[in-house]
């Protein structure tokens, strides 16, 4: 049902909840965020993704009010919030360290923000209990933060930041301290809570899987700039540059030159004396232009014999096999010495596999499988 899909960013009439307008943040000589413009819409689960030091935490701290931009404006619901101090913003933050008050019980931690609003006693009590229920913490209400587990602390931090029903919730690496299993479970809980409360979430993470799982849109950042802002699918399937392709998931990058081979179709010369590769692209590439072809390993098919119909087929030798149980990744050396990774699901028993180390194999993929990227 594409009509009902949640995509306010595609609707020019939609009003963004948050607008970064030419925001620059400098710390001394260091530019943490450089001339950045970005819109985030209501009810979005927006992920800021990038390596450490890329400026994503600075963006979040500017939204919370702990840092002020050196230049530019930040709008929340149409209002410039730069002069507004953190305690006057309808924005709450869940800290990476959780920042739970160690001298207060779980209950009092959650009630802390509500007390500042001078809420009547009954309203405060029912709101705290609602939050405890939402995060399944009813049994731990009387405990102190150091008397509960890491996962429970994480939920207290979430409950505390949601208690004031902020317009915007900021989550700074919210699952950084959890182990992998718990992290995956928590990701789904978080999405569930976001849906239930309808709050706009902005999450900062360096974990691309986490960003892909939870977010409606992902902004990939590097060195203080936005590299690509798009849905997880678009980021994965249609990265706009080698950096994004490489940062998100596993990818093969082949260097070569392009030539036109039909409408929105290009040939790609990648090694002397080898058949060119073919790939579609909506961007225009000139004759002989330097370019990169990015192909995901799971989109490459590996067979013992040359497939009869394949738009791209390359011969190579298996040099390595990474067996992951459900799938295997084959490292195949192709002419010119480059190694391509190809993934295959282990639908048959390993003993029935028709190729192994040092075997000659064929790699094949469709012309729509890869992405041509400018260098």
């Amino acid at each position, binding site marked *: 049902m594409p009509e009902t899909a949640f995509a306010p960013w595609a609707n020019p009439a939609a009003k963004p909840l948050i607008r970064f307008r030419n925001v620059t943040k400098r710390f001394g000589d260091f530019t943490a965020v450089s001339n950045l413009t970005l819109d985030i819409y209501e009810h979005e689960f927006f992920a800021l993704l990038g390596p450490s030091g890329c400026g994503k935490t600075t963006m979040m701290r500017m939204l919370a009010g*702990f840092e002020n931009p050196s230049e530019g404006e930040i709008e929340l619901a149409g209002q410039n919030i730069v002069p507004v101090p953190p*305690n006057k913003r309808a*924005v709450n*933050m869940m*800290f990476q360290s959780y*920042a739970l*008050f160690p001298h207060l019980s779980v209950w009092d931690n959650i009630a802390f*923000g509500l007390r*500042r609003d001078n809420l009547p006693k009954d309203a405060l009590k029912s709101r705290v209990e609602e939050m405890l229920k939402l995060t399944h913490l009813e049994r731990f209400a009387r405990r102190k933060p150091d008397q509960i587990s890491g996962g429970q602390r994480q939920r207290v931090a979430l409950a505390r930041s949601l208690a004031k029903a902020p317009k915007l919730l900021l989550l700074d690496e919210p699952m950084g301290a959890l182990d992998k299993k718990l992290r995956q479970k928590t990701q789904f809980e978080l999405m569930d809570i976001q849906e239930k409360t309808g709050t706009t979430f902005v999450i900062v993470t360096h974990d691309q899987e986490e960003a892909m799982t939870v977010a409606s849109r992902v902004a990939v950042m590097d060195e203080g700039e936005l590299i690509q802002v798009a849905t997880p699918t678009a980021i994965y399937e249609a990265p706009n540059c080698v950096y994004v392709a490489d940062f998100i998931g596993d990818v093969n990058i082949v260097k070569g030159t392009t030539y036109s081979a039909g409408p929105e179709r290009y040939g790609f010369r990648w090694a002397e004396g080898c058949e060119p590769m073919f790939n579609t692209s909506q961007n225009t590439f000139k004759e002989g232009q330097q370019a990169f072809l990015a192909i995901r390993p799971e989109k490459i098919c590996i067979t013992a014999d040359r497939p009869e119909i394949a738009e791209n087929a390359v011969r190579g030798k298996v040099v390595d096999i990474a067996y992951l149980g459900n799938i295997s990744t084959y490292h195949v050396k192709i002419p010119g010495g480059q190694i391509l990774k190809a993934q295959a699901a282990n639908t048959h028993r390993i003993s029935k596999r028709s190729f192994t180390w040092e075997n000659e194999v064929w790699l094949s993929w469709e012309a729509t499988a890869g992405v041509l990227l400018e260098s």
Partner: protein
Amino acid sequence: MRRFFFIAIPYLWLLALFLIPFAIVLKISLSDMAMARPPYLPQFSWEDGVWSFLSQLDFENFVFLTTDNLYWKAYASSLQIAVVSTLLALLIGYPIAYAMARAPEEWRATLMLLVILPFWTSFLIRVYSWMGILSQEGYLNQLLLALGMISEPLIILNTKVAVYIGIVYTYIPFMVLPIYAALDRLDRSLIEAAEDLGCSRTQAFWLVTVPLSRNGIMAGCFLVFIPTLGEFVIPSLLGGSGTLMIGKVLWEEFFNNRDWPVAAAVAVVLTLILIIPIVLFQRNQQKQIEAES
């Protein structure tokens, strides 16, 4: 076992150095003054036996302390001076510790050194120096007169004010260091979290910073209060004859009157005054811990 061993040795050492002298002082306080050497009776001897020795001990000296106004007035005055000095040290020391903990990383070692620096000169010399500063012809009065802020020299030396100045100056590092240690450990994101949840800077300070530095405040207050209560040098050098403090009374009983038993009784009561609040505080802590778990 080994850990127990390593803890036990220093503790036994400290305990012995506290309990044995205390037992001796307690025994003297229960004795009678005598023109002898040492100047009290009874002396323990094996020939008379333990029973006859014990039968000669009594609480006469403690009763005596209640009959003379001097003693309870001196205790009360000491308590008052100790409480006020502790509060003053807290009021001045907390901001210092706070500023140190908030200072840039590379400055903190230097700031810490500056707090400890006065200990490198003798305590006595430092107190004598205050006499030079505070006296009527002292540096402070000269400065204020030169600046035209006063027309007549202020009388500070030999008043309680001078005693407070001396005590706060001397003991402030003991207030600053434990509070600094507590504030230094404080996670700064807790303050940010408090602000994020709607606290002003001031509210965040009272609701988060102060409760979380409570242990440092307690430690600092005890470290200032306990030595101040029995302080002798500062009141006798800076306070003049008008300042009554139990440490001074004790000195006079011991050296001027050579009444060792009464001096010992004064000391025993002083120790009790110090121990009772510490025990109460401990029990309170214990109860709190039990209530939490």
